[in-house]
């Protein structure tokens, strides 16, 4: 039994924490928050590229570090703690995993090295409107060589150079790879609940595109990619939830009312204890997801779903009760609580809302039980 990260992985996490606390403080997040024209923090992004983190789980033959997804999990948690305002999740959890899962060796050889070098920034475009996208209701179409239709919203869609897009092809769905800097692509920046991350509407009008994987495999590949992304996002959410608990705990110790720290009141103590319990439930489920995604275990579908459900719940609860613990201060723009509340919501809907994953989980449990 060894249900924990290795010493090396923990060391990586510690180093990443030091690096990000120094290079990506909340002031760096607020540069993106306060300026509608700024899509991400380019300085932070540049440093992330320089650290080589984008290649963490990319094979050495493609210029990556050749480590595994466990190391990405470790980094994801740290990115989540600082609310990193960069296209990390889109590029690493979604775009890179999509290429690794569905890309041909030519596609991988072409694109993966450019991810490592920072020349390619990726995003993942599935949503076309309210509700979880399914193959049945897709309107964006791929005709074998070009892509047409509108994707909205695409997280990091205005900073990315490339997108993996879920599109209709014939009667089925396929995944396709598009160069967003090429012709036939129009992008419009959108306002969202989380202005520290940029979002776009992308209109494709016969944009040149190549398929990832086989025609008609889009939905199956999308499910696989989302299982990977869900685990990695869950660690990012866990990082955010842990940081929110720390913020609330620190404030509760420092803030005095009625002659003593507010953290001496059971109303606050038990609220924070509940936060801790939810965070630990999330952490344990995240660890299991990490094991499953890194070993390619058959348990991945239920492990990914459980990690995502637990992490969504933990970050939601921690972020809203962190505001509540801060009282009036917590409802000001200057105090950082609302940034966690905003990010918690983004991460909870970005790869399918919790209710979508609850249904996935139960379907998996049923199938297992039936088998």
């Amino acid at each position, binding site marked *: 039994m060894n249900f924990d990260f290795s010493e090396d992985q923990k060391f990586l996490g510690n180093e990443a924490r030091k690096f990000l606390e120094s290079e990506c403080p909340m002031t760096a997040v607020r540069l993106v928050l306060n300026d509608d024209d700024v899509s991400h923090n380019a300085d932070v992004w540049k440093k992330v590229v320089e650290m080589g983190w984008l290649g963490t789980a990319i094979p050495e033959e493609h210029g990556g570090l050749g480590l595994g997804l466990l190391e990405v999990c470790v980094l994801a948690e740290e990115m989540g703690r600082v609310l990193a305002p960069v296209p990390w999740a889109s590029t690493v959890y979604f775009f890179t995993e999509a290429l690794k899962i569905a890309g041909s060796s030519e596609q991988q050889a072409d694109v993966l090295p450019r991810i490592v070098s920072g020349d390619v920034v990726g995003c993942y475009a599935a949503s076309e409107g309210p509700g979880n996208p399914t193959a049945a209701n897709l309107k964006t179409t791929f005709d074998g060589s070009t892509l047409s239709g509108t994707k909205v919203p695409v997280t990091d869609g205005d900073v990315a150079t490339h997108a993996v897009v879920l599109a209709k092809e014939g009667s089925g769905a396929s995944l396709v790879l598009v160069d967003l800097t090429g012709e036939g692509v129009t992008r419009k920046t959108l306002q969202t609940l989380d202005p520290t991350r940029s979002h776009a509407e992308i209109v494709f009008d016969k944009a040149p595109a190549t398929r990832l994987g086989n025609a008609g495999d889009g939905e199956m590949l999308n499910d696989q990619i989302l299982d990977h992304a869900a685990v990695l996002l869950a660690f990012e959410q866990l990082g955010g939830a842990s940081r929110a608990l720390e913020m609330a705990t620190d404030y509760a110790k420092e803030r005095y009312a*009625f002659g003593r720290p507010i953290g001496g009141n059971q*109303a606050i103590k038990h609220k924070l204890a509940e936060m801790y319990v939810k965070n630990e439930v999330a952490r344990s489920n995240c660890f299991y997801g990490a094991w499953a995604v890194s070993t390619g275990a058959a348990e991945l579908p239920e492990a990914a779903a459980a990690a995502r459900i637990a992490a969504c719940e933990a970050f939601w609860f921690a972020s809203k009760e962190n505001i509540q613990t801060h009282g009036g201060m917590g409802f000001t723009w200057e105090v950082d609580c609302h940034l966690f509340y905003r990010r918690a919501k983004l991460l909870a809907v970005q790869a399918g809302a919790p209710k*979508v994953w609850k249904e996935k989980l139960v379907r998996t449990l049923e199938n297992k039980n039936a088998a």
Partner: protein
Amino acid sequence: MDFNDTKEEAEFRAEARAFLGKHLDPKGDKPLRQRVDGSEFMRRAKEWQKTKAENGYAQITWPKEIGGRGGTPMQQVIWNQEEGKFDAPTGPFTIGLGMCIPTVIAFGSDEHKKRYVGKALKGEEIWCQLFSEPSAGSDVAGLKTRAVKDGDEWVINGQKVWTSGAHYSDYGILLTRTDPSVPKHKGLTMFIVDMKQAGVEVRPIHQASGGREFNEVYFTDVRIKDSDRLGDVGQGWKVAIVTLMNERLAVGGSPGPDWAEIMAYAKEAGTMSDQAFREKLADWYVAAQGYKLTKFRTQTALSRGQTPGPENSIGKIITANHLQDICNSAIEMQDHYGILTDSDRMPADAIFQQSFMWAPGLRIAGGTDEILKNIIAERVLGLPQDVRVDKDLPFDQMKSG
């Protein structure tokens, strides 16, 4: 049991409705939160307040001698219901007439009453309430703004926070610390302050929701005459309690989308068949009805001449959390798309997204969930007070983090 008006109530309602119809337009289909900014809005608001005052509708329960109608609390409720159906610009006067002026009436001199009550009633002067401070939120009595006696005057230095309407107010009631050497509740004194004088600086607070509806107010060597004191020196807490007792009655109302709005959205989105959503919808309906019907019980008590008590605190506990839950669910139903906030593009004009950002504030403003539960536990159920380590401690020896 009977939801109908009595004969007298029906008569008053008809009269009120006729009067309102003569002066105002009915409310549109989609009421957004009333915006109290802009000079045109303020001009209309003052005009409407004057019209109400001249016709005996400004403060219905106040005695006629001071400009009221000498009416019943039930008539006030009926008036509010009817006025709520029209596009009535009432916001700027709520705090002044609901909280500040009653305090002036209770503790002010005859000169104060003569000088301030009529003008406030007619909307000629607007009032705000200056109690909360950055380090004194739930624990209001822990405030630090100092008032130091200097001859016939007091010199004020300090900072207030979360002051609604400070930027357009003419006067305020200001709670200060006049004696830090005694326990916190005993060293407070209340004043009337002229908000337009030098040394009073109002700065809008940028809220987490993005809006700027509240203010910080800084006092720098502001001078107040001793004759503008409300109540005795050191009796400020007693005065403040009178003000705050009126607050709990003022808070409430429907703060945003409810079960009907999310049900309308679910129909539009075609997700009404989801049994999980249906069960949640049932719970939301029951909670919303619980809140609405509890207000009916309160009105019934009012109409019988009874005084509603602290049990009213349940309203805000229910509605604030309820709103947060409904908005969160609506956003998650929209999935990734739910993160967008553009009201032109979003279902229900993005009201779920707007209220999602407003809900955390509602859980704090006017008493946090935690403070309200304490109030219910102590004042309704009679459970022991929290241990107050600072109860008998001189204020200047208190720890403050």
